[in-house]
């Protein structure tokens, strides 16, 4: 019997060793694979049980973690003044992941960033809960609120951006319609899903896109700033250059007629200076200019101003598009901001920034500073140049031209007494819908530019777009320079 008992012992020991083998496989060899499994939410759970850093504007939190007794997690993410900041903060949720700054700044907010290694080690030794860092934004709370309040609540989709042209700091970035991220940050997966469905049903609203940096919209005539840069750079054009200004022109190589805008006063002058046609936003001279300079010149200028470039502010900005290898007729349409020319509102703001800041575009940026839990500043991005878009001389000439629309042209409705505002308007027709995208992008003050302001109203009838964009630009300019 003892012989059999010994064999039983050997067999059982073997079984135990197999178990130890299984444990070793899971906890050692396969642990990384299991951790990376998309179904594994442990990392996320851990985050939800730790205090997450706040996102601050003017020292006040717009997103913060508050301790909660409800639900299965220790903390609940709370958004203050949620609609005003929704497109910036995004949301932080268990059910739908996280978006925008909540996603982009995750390393800082959770404290897992390598720059916070020391803090983590310290927390480990002192036995404290590790806390995330807080991030202060460059946004000016008052301007942001003003911009949000300016946009009507009738479902119109409009975006307003204000940037500091000397530092690239983004002072305002607002789009309506907006939503309440608190609705999506609820811990209940079911509630979050229901709320998400409701929000996404709103016309023109997606929680995954910040229209200011992710919507690609035809820039229309606001693109003519870039045409003008290309023209002046070529040496063939200046503000006084006389140009043919027919009221209709046949697109090269086609029978399609393109005309100047009916409501404008372009048709009053069959020949006009560049200054006049810029001020009145006439189309036909720019069509001629496009054939004169060729595609290459425009590709070159648009690239220097940021088209097709990767940009993170640190939110990822969708690169704007200027088409390549076009037929002459397509080029003619592309240079008046139609055809496949597509730009984000931020891109058109950067165009104004470049002209305003003597041809140098500062890197647009949302982050003022990162503050560790012990209030030490761990990161404070310095202003840096994004690109040298053109020469100071060319910039100065274009800046001068941009005075026209406000004084006597398409943007007279934006005039603010006492502020030397320089702008270019744009109206892009959307197919045959009868609707347009209305733009105004510009900067002020003219003698020492400080802020670039851009307004975009999407998919509205022409009159409404023109009037609303003008009104928004005017009121925003007032607000900016009232401080």
């Amino acid at each position, binding site marked *: *019997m003892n012989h059999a008992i010994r064999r039983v*012992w050997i067999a*059982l020991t073997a079984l135990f060793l197999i*178990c130890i083998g299984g*444990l070793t496989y899971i*906890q*050692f060899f396969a642990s990384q694979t299991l*951790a990376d499994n998309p179904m594994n939410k*442990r990392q996320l759970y851990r985050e939800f049980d730790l205090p997450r850093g706040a996102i601050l504007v003017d020292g006040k939190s717009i997103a913060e973690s508050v301790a909660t007794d409800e639900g299965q997690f220790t903390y609940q993410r709370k958004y203050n003044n949620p609609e005003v900041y929704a497109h910036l903060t995004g949301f932080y949720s268990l059910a739908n992941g996280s978006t925008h700054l909540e996603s982009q700044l995750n390393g800082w907010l959770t404290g897992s960033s390598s720059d916070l290694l020391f803090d983590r080690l310290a927390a480990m030794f002192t036995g404290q809960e590790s806390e995330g860092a807080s991030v202060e934004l460059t946004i000016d709370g008052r301007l942001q609120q003003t911009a949000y309040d300016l946009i009507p609540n009738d479902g119109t989709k409009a975006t307003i951006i204000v940037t500091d042209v000397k530092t690239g700091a983004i002072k305002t970035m607002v789009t309506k319609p907006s939503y309440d991220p608190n609705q999506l940050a609820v811990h209940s997966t079911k509630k979050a899903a229901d709320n998400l469905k409701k929000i996404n049903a709103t016309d023109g609203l997606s929680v995954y896109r910040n229209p200011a940096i992710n919507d690609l919209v035809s820039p229309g005539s606001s693109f003519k700033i870039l045409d003008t840069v290309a023209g002046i750079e070529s040496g063939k054009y200046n503000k006084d250059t006389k140009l043919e200004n027919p009221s209709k022109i046949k697109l090269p190589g086609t029978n399609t007629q393109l005309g100047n805008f009916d409501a404008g006063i372009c048709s009053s002058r069959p020949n006009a200076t560049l200054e006049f046609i810029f001020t009145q936003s006439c189309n036909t001279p720019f069509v001629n200019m496009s054939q004169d300079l060729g595609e290459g010149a425009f590709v070159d200028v648009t690239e220097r101003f940021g088209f097709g470039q990767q940009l993170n502010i640190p939110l990822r900005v969708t690169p704007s598009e200027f088409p390549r290898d076009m037929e002459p007729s397509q080029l003619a349409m592309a240079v008046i901001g139609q055809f496949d020319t597509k730009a984000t509102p931020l891109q058109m703001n950067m165009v104004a920034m470049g002209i305003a800041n003597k041809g140098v575009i500062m890197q647009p940026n949302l982050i003022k500073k990162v503050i560790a839990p012990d209030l030490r500043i761990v990161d404070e991005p310095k202003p840096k140049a994004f690109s040298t878009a053109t020469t100071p001389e060319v910039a100065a000439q274009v800046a001068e031209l941009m005075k026209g629309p406000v004084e006597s042209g398409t943007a007279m409705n934006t005039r603010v007494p006492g502020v030397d505002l320089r702008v270019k308007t744009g109206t892009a027709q959307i197919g045959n819908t009868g609707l347009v995208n209305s733009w105004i992008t510009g900067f002020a003050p003219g003698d020492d530019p400080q802020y670039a302001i851009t307004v975009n109203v999407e998919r509205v009838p022409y009159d409404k777009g023109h009037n609303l964009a003008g009104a928004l630009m005017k009121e925003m300019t007032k607000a900016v320079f009232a401080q």
Partner: protein
Amino acid sequence: MTEVQTAPVSRRNLELLLLLLALAVGASAFYLVGVTTEATDVMVIVKQIGVLGVLGLIIHVLLRIFAKYADPVILPIAVALNALGLAMIYRIDMAKSTDQASRQLLWTVIAVLVAAVALWIIRDHRTLRRFTYISLAASLILLVLPMIPGLGVTINGARIWIHVGSYSMQPGELAKITLAVFFAAYLSSNRDLILMAGRKVGPLQLPRMRDMAPMVLAWLMSIGVLVVQRDLGSSILFFGMFIVMVYVATARISWVLIGFLLVVVGGVFAGSTMGHVTRRLNTWLNAFDPEVYQASGGSMQIVEGLFGMADGGLFGTGLGAGSPYRVPLANSDMIIASFGEEIGLIGVVAIVLLFMLLISRGLRTALGSRDAFGKLLATGLSVTLALQCVVIIGGVTRLIPLTGLATPFMAAGGSSLLANWIIVVILLLISHNARRPMDETATPTDVVATPSATHKAVKSS
């Protein structure tokens, strides 16, 4: 007996030392849980470890009086495992705001006191031989109890529970012991017949059917458990114990082969025809399929357990610092995964080694036992302990399909605790009998043994 007999010494002082060590391990575990989860109630820890300490000492003192030559390692290991289990249950309580730990402590008190009384009454394990067929009947009754309408309840798909007042019990846990007693007694009495009679087919010696009738009955019983009560774990346990005990009694490998054959046939049959077994197999094989994961009663439990253990890695998150409570049944079926997560591979392997040591001591007891009944009983009981561990650890690590077996001494659940503590005292009594001085064999305690016991013991030497 092949072992050289040295002068037997009582190792009770060593046991006391190890007992204190075991309590220190438990207290440390509680302390870590308390510190990390910021549990403010220090009295809970004092109460838990204090009560467990008193219980350990009661058994220790009883051993000093009634079984002073008993193995000194078995009791401390059981106490250590029980303490660790209480600590983990307390830790899960902290996360879930439940109070399972107090309940488990109460069950521990009941289990150890019942075991103490059993120790005091039984004194000599050979007494149990007198209950051969009573054990069989008791086993049957215990297994059938949950099937009685009004008394039995179905929990998690298995009908193995009975409700008594506000408490639920798994009488099947106790059936492990009564069945082991029956097998041991029957086989030790009839092994000669089983061995000698019967035909030889090729290299295999087949026993006569009528000698095996009671064994076949027992085997049918374990299959019945699977089919009727849908309890795969217990079925494996009963069957494994049965095969091993027959093998030890007869030393015939043919039994093991026949047993395996029956397992394969039964397994294939159950896997292909029985809905709940098929589902369980699918859950096991396709655990990471999102659909299987999300299905009700799907692989969420096992997969979350695996994620938890992977999270723990080599060193673990630290007691109280992980999130094992996200795994359903983290304090019972999945308690090994909870340990894996919080004390890491190193810690959980240490626990497995404790089990291995406990079972090795049990089999060492079987080796040293002077009577066939004692050998078989010690083997059977050790094997049930071992199989429980292996089946549940194998299940949690996805080596085999997960079944609802309790991790001995650790998992929340009173019946298992009660059964395993009784197993411990029986093993202690057998070890005392094995290790005590030979000249004591003529003491009056032997008189209670059946007359044939001495005869058998000589024969088996």
